[in-house]
């Protein structure tokens, strides 16, 4: 008699075991793989007071693998005056890289040919420089590099002056800025060639 009773209990447990199985199945649904305990790019975090997971750069920080030759390579200035030397080797690849980068960054305002005419300039509000004016044709190579690095101010910022061109130092790498400077020079030469620039066989 006792045996049958315990058998009954066993059967009853067996009969309801699906609940346990179902619970086990549900416990398999969790998101800790989907959302892992690490902070991704731009993910908010309560750890820092400003709510950001990523930290702003420390002043003067250089990116990993950033090339650092000398002061001229990074500023385009020799004793505060723009130098006229290209600190990297002038190759066809450099000019092609310069062209590609120029068309991303500069052409939006200055135009692909560098005349200061573009869709954005046409819509008004800004007056981009024309690279083919005499002042800029006479300018040294370091001038273009330095402008890309620090930007252009119209007037004194303290007296209502404003920054007409922002610095691109955080967006374009140093090597690419030199490539663009070299390409701007090539653009200038392309608009003002003389017969001497044509190889004698092609004349």
């Amino acid at each position, binding site marked *: 008699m006792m045996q049958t009773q315990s058998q009954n209990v066993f059967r009853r447990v067996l009969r309801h075991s699906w609940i346990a199985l179902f619970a086990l199945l549900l416990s398999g649904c969790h998101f800790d793989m989907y959302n892992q305990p690490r902070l991704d*790019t731009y993910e908010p975090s309560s750890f820092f007071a400003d709510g950001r997971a990523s930290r702003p750069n420390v002043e003067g920080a250089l990116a990993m693998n950033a090339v650092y030759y000398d002061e001229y390579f990074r500023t385009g200035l020799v004793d505060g005056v723009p130098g006229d030397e290209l600190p990297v080797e002038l190759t066809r690849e450099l000019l092609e890289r310069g062209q590609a980068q120029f068309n991303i960054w500069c052409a939006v305002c200055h135009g692909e040919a560098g005349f200061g005419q573009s869709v954005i300039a046409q819509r008004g509000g800004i007056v981009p420089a024309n690279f083919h004016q005499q002042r800029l044709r006479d300018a040294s190579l370091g001038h273009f590099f330095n402008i890309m690095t620090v930007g252009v101010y119209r007037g004194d910022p303290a007296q209502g002056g404003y920054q*007409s061109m922002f610095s691109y130092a955080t967006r374009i790498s140093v090597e690419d800025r030199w490539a663009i400077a070299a390409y701007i020079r090539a653009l200038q030469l392309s608009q003002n060639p003389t017969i001497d620039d044509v190889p004698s066989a092609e004349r």
Partner: protein
Amino acid sequence: MGQIFPRNANLFVRVSIFAGLLLATTLVLLIGVYFRSNTYRQVNVAIEQPVPYSHQLHADTLGIDCRYCHVSVEQSAFANIPATETCMTCHSQIKTNSDQLAPVRASYASGDPVLWERVHRLPDFVFFNHSIHVNKGIGCSECHGRVDQMPVVWQEQAFFMGFCLDCHRNPENYVRPVEEVYNMEYIHPANQRELGAQLVAEYGIMPVDQLTNCWICHR
């Protein structure tokens, strides 16, 4: 004691067994369909942003290159959202009084970022790298669609694993010349398979058995 149920109730019991099974199956299927639906995945749902930035205006009408704002796409796994400084490069001079740009000016003044809404999400167990894709000839529009035609950005693909694998199994069907990666209007030519095979060899894209290895995306 008389019988409570009539004899034909037996049929009802038998049918209800099958009906119950059918119901359970349907429920499982419905749940599956729901979690794969565009509604759940937020596909083709335009995401409202704190600033009504239009890719259609900036990328198509004005012709600004993708990389002007998404600077890091060629070097980094993550294609960055532009810094406020990038917006202010132009908008410190253009449309300086626009109400719609007020959050941008506030962000530039305070240093706090503009709180853009994220459109594309991947689970943490998937490691997608933008730079390798754009440098090996996979165009932006291949996954993101015609962003240059979107006044407000939406997600074009559900990004199921099958979507990724489709290309990882047959890269020659999707690879384009690297000069065309940022061309949103690019249409694959009729001889795509020949051209693709040629480009796969030229760009040194991994053989398919490596491209479809788990560790390519899951680490």
